[in-house]
């Protein structure tokens, strides 16, 4: 190949037209009940977008044997890569695959339908922008379909494709398609999902996946699956202010002290005032250091090293945040969670909670449990069994720092780790700080004090205050701003 010929084939970064399209890949999952055809669908998608190379295709044909009468390979084998999966013909763990069309690139997580492996579905859902929910047209919408739709919604997925699959096995029956699409619309509505596209699909034959199915379904005029995926949106930047969960402190020499982490929201530039949480100390940003150059700004997603203008005490697990829109700091929060392991979640047991780079002790008290059939939350203060979706109260020994998951998918997310097994036993989403969401003493009169920091610290250390710490809001600021705020109350 000559140098001139290559120039036509690849577009070097400088020549591409990044303004025209978002080159970030769309992250999606397939979900739904066992055997609905999730792996087959993704296998077909990879096949029809030419993501399967010749040697892989040869291996697929060799491994497929005779699995259907259509003479087609078993596309699910492109995804079900574990021996146990191939032996049992089911998906056990999530597989990540990468493919692209002319218009955009995709990261797809193919998740298992089997209830026993719901934890692996949750793993895939936590980072997805869109869910392709499959339904076997013959079996219809099952409890597991609802479970997956609910978990996907809780985890912040707002765009759904309802793929009504195996349409070839019901003679491409339009009436059945309409019936299932309508049934799901009501479920979606109750979950608060507005964006659903229903598509009649044969994953096996590749109808309405990449190529249209007009020949067998002249009645369907909507988009193919790939057309919907190409138009879907990638999660937009988080709306709350600047957040930097500190991963590590970099001290290569006496003269340098930088705080390393990935920006979890908002933006930052030199000169910005920031607060260090939970201590409440304030400082200004002096520099944003990266390997390439000293930068004049960083935005959500950037892995950076931040240098502050003064000596402050900052450690791993702390959060550096904008002063104007701070995350919530407290000892009690409300959350929703999905129990992921056979032992469930036990009330009153002490777990480790990890969020961002912060790990701390927590006790969990369930308050309600979701009934998947009715979609209703029922009062429940016992243990949460595996795969249950519950609302819980979290109580901490030391201050915790969160945003509501709705506002920030990074600073509002957490996992629970069982100290006995070290396994991850739940994935959780913060609703809000306890006092703020209908907690104690909501009606009572409040007093705002403005005092010197050293005196505040002494009071904070006292027993009387620490007993009711979660009812107290504390913000640190400078004398001028404090006077201003009190002035506002007076007027």
């Amino acid at each position, binding site marked *: *190949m000559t*140098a001139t*010929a*290559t120039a036509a*084939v*690849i577009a*070097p*970064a*400088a020549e591409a037209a*990044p303004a025209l399209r978002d*080159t*970030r*890949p769309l992250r999606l999952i397939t979900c739904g009940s066992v055997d609905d055809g999730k792996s087959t669908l993704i296998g077909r998608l990879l096949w029809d977008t030419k993501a399967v*190379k010749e*040697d892989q295709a040869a*291996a697929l044909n060799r491994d497929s044997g005779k699995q259907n009468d259509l003479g087609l390979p078993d596309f699910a084998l492109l*995804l079900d*890569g*574990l*021996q*146990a999966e*191939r032996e049992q013909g089911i998906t*056990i*763990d*999530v*597989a*990540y695959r*990468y493919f692209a069309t002319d218009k955009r*690139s995709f*990261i797809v997580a193919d998740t298992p339908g089997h209830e026993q492996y719901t934890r*692996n579905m*949750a*793993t895939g859902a*936590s980072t997805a922008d869109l869910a392709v929910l499959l339904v076997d047209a013959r079996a219809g919408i099952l409890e597991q379909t609802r479970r997956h739709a609910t978990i996907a919604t809780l985890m912040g997925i707002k765009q759904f494709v309802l793929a009504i699959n195996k349409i070839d096995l019901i003679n491409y029956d339009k009436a059945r398609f309409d019936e299932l699409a309508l049934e799901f619309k009501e479920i979606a509505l109750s979950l608060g999902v507005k964006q659903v596209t229903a598509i009649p699909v044969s994953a096996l034959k590749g109808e309405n996946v990449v190529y249209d199915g007009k020949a067998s379904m002249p009645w369907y005029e909507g988009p193919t699956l790939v057309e919907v995926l190409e138009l879907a949106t990638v999660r937009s930047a988080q709306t709350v202010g600047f957040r930097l969960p500190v*991963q*590590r402190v*970099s*001290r*290569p020499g006496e003269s*340098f002290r*930088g705080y*390393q982490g*990935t920006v979890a929201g908002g933006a930052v530039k030199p000169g910005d005032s920031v607060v260090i949480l939970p201590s409440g100390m304030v400082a200004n940003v002096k520099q944003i*250091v990266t*390997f390439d150059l000293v930068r004049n700004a960083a935005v959500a*997603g*950037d*892995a950076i*090293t931040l240098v502050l203008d003064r000596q402050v005490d900052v450690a791993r697990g702390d959060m550096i945040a904008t002063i104007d829109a701070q995350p919530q700091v407290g000892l009690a929060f409300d959350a929703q969670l999905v129990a992921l392991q056979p032992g469930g979640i036990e009330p009153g047991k002490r777990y*480790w909670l*990890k969020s961002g*780079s912060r790990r701390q002790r927590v006790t969990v008290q369930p308050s309600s449990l979701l009934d998947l059939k009715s979609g209703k939350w029922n009062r429940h203060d016992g243990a949460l069994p595996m795969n249950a979706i519950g609302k819980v109260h979290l109580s901490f020994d030391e201050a915790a720092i969160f945003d509501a998951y709705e506002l920030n998918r*990074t600073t509002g*997310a957490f*996992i629970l*780790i069982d100290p006995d097994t*070290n*396994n*991850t036993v739940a*994935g959780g989403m913060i609703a809000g700080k306890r006092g703020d969401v209908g907690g104690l003493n909501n009606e009572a009169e409040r007093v705002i004090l403005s005092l010197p920091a050293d005196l505040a610290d002494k009071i904070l250390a006292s027993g009387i205050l620490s007993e009711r710490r979660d009812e107290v809001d504390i913000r640190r600021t400078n004398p001028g701003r404090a006077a201003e705020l009190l002035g506002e109350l007076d007027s």
Partner: protein
Amino acid sequence: MHISEFDAHTQDKQAKPPLDPHLKALENEAIHIFREVAAEFERPVMLYSIGKDSSVLLHLARKAFYPGRIPFPLLHVDTGWKFPEMIAFRDEMAKRFDLDLVVHTNPRGAKENISPFTHGSALHTDIMKTEALRQALDAGQYDAAFGGARRDEEASRAKERIYSFRTPDHKWDPRNQRPELWNVYNGMIRRGESVRAFPLSNWTEVDIWRYIQAENIPLPPLYYAAKRKFVERDGMLMWAEDKRFEALPGEQVQEDYIRFRTLGCWPLTGAIRSHATTLDDVIAELEIATVSERQGRAIDRDQAGSMEKKKREGYF
């Protein structure tokens, strides 16, 4: 220093436009993983296998800890059958970037003269790679090991977590992996247990090459086409310039332009015929390639599931 030799293929050192958002996102994710592991574990180590993925991994590690040094050693498991150009490149990088390099060869295998020719590729890999790796990890008491594996390489890798838990005897249980939600990684282990961490999990082969190009990352020259001696054996182009190479009866040693898509032990790594002498050429060739990169690797071809089996036993 042979800087010119290893950097000759990357062009345009001055002009470095900002990374496109896709590569930037992958870079950010990898740096995040590096920092998280370095902060959570007591004795991390980075597996350094000298190939393109390791080269990207090394570059990302330098970025992650800048302006500091990389706060852990690099481990190279040397089977004794690597291309000499790989070893020269490794030593050059260690010097250039002031790396803490640990090289380990299985003493038992070296004493018994284990060779992929006389003992077969499976036994050679078991002893000189998998067993050697376990020895080195035990000796260093490492509780976390970074690897450059990518999920797009192979079907069982596509299933692997970013933090992949290992028992005290380095076993992987693919049926019981810990859930891994968002980018919150669970690094809690007991003494003796360990985690393999994969910062490049979500990168594809094309991403790797485009990143190498965007960042001017030096590579062993074997990735670029040159006139080299080789034979065709079992449908594979085998490099024939080592003094331990012996032509089989009827085999013709040829000389032509070839290069490698992956690097490993030379008797197990097939070359491709190519005239791609620059990065642009390599990327262009890749974008129209009809076979996957692992096709040149003898280790994957034994049977379906052979990679999973090796991984369960502790292979990377």
